[in-house]
């Protein structure tokens, strides 16, 4: 058992540990990882209804998305700050404040206090350092703490965004160019949350459309690996160093982690298994003889029509042993705003993820308890199911 604040640091970190959690693409922050533990745990403690949790969640996501829209693209990440750590605290402060029943002045103050608690560095990300994982937890801790301090009358700066030491100038320097109108543009009428993307596969994002096409060769075309003579995948030129080259490493990845960056291994696995879940990212898949045999019959070509980097366009053509050729291509990746995941797909992902820890008789009730939040459900019913198996 942990205290409320530490539980957010812990649970928020778990949500991002496998890099399988959702993202707001314009500003690259993992956005729900800390917020979900926050609204559920605080909501349960405050005894609120499920619909209050959903309202608070949407507040956190809308503001967490909007605060990043003041600066271009990945400026924050280029400076070395984690967008997840630095941007999410403000929306979380408002979500926590809403659950605590704060008035407008206190809700404004909570954001001012959250400014001083924001943190998160990108250092160590290439080393695989674990500290990156709890950035979303830090945003939740900052939000909760700030809201509680505001509730108890802690005085706060009034201009956490516009000020000389406000969010943007603090992160990007005094000369930072900020698109001020973008920070509030459309707030309450156009929902940034619509663009927040659930990740369908636990592997490098660049390969998602190609993997989706490969899965459909199995599921929709009913192909077995032996039906296939050769597969040619289509990639953007700039994706080649990430997915295809150097050939020796990519074609014969030395370990499971390297496997998730090998387009040859990923496509072969997707065709053979007809899915791409955490199970497919284990060492066992790397040793599967039918996957190993198929990956040697895969090559790539450059796709001149790719919409990369805005979308991870991709596709493939499979030349079959019966003489046919099957082509599949999609300009937009699954999970993007153009191709949102179907509810069934998200639930299937959940069942597989939760099934790694819990028995079936626990997993189903969790789905029901979460889906009941919008009806007559309550957050304590969800949290009560999430302890030890």
């Amino acid at each position, binding site marked *: 058992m942990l205290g409320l604040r530490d539980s957010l640091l812990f649970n928020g970190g778990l949500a991002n540990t*496998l890099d399988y959690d959702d993202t707001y693409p314009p500003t690259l922050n993992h956005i729900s990882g800390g917020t979900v533990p926050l609204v559920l745990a605080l909501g349960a403690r405050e005894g609120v209804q499920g619909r209050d949790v959903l309202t608070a*969640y949407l507040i956190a996501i809308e503001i967490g998305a909007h605060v990043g829209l003041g600066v271009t693209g990945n400026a924050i990440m280029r400076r070395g700050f984690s967008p997840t750590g630095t941007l999410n605290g403000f929306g979380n402060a408002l979500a926590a404040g809403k659950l605590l029943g704060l008035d407008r002045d206190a809700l404004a103050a909570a*954001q001012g206090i959250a400014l001083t608690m924001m943190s998160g560095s990108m250092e160590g990300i290439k080393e695989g350092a674990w500290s990156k994982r709890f950035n979303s937890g830090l945003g939740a801790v900052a939000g909760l703490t700030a809201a509680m301090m505001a509730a108890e009358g802690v005085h706060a700066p009034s201009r956490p965004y516009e000020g000389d030491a406000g969010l943007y100038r603090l992160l990007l320097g005094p000369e930072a160019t900020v698109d001020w109108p973008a920070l509030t543009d459309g707030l309450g009428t156009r929902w940034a949350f619509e663009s927040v993307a659930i990740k369908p596969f636990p592997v490098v994002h660049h390969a998602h459309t190609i993997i989706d096409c490969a899965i459909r060769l199995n599921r929709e075309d009913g192909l077995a690996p032996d039906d296939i003579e050769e597969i040619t995948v289509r990639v953007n030129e700039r994706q080649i160093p990430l997915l295809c080259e150097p050939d020796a490493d990519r074609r014969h990845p030395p370990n499971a982690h390297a496997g998730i960056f090998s387009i040859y291994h990923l496509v072969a696995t997707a065709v053979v298994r007809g899915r791409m879940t955490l199970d497919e990212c284990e060492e066992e898949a790397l040793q599967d003889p039918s996957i190993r045999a198929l990956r040697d019959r895969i090559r790539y070509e450059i796709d001149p029509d790719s919409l990369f980097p805005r979308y991870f366009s991709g596709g493939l053509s499979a030349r079959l042993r019966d003489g046919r050729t099957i082509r599949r291509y999609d300009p937009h990746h699954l999970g993007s705003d153009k191709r949102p995941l179907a509810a069934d797909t998200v639930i299937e992902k959940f069942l597989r993820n939760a099934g790694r820890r819990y028995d079936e008789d626990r997993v189903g009730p969790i789905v029901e308890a979460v889906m009941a939040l919008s009806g007559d459900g309550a957050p304590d019913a969800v949290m009560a199911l999430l302890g030890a198996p």
Partner: protein
Amino acid sequence: MAEPTIAQQYAAFADDLRFETIPVFLIEKASLHILDTIGCAIAASRTDYASSMLAALTRLEGGSGATAIGQRKCSD
């Protein structure tokens, strides 16, 4: 009256938002994102990372009762 600050505008948005006025498709999407986030956390709950973090946080919480300067103890 002075132009409201951004923090005031965000506060007003949060204060005004009512469950009943949120479009139904967004409520459904929000429920799925909550479910997805929980699933990602469950899947990571047996990692070495989880063990180390839980151990660290548990050690920090153990033996509470440190002095807050000038204050009575909570149990007083």
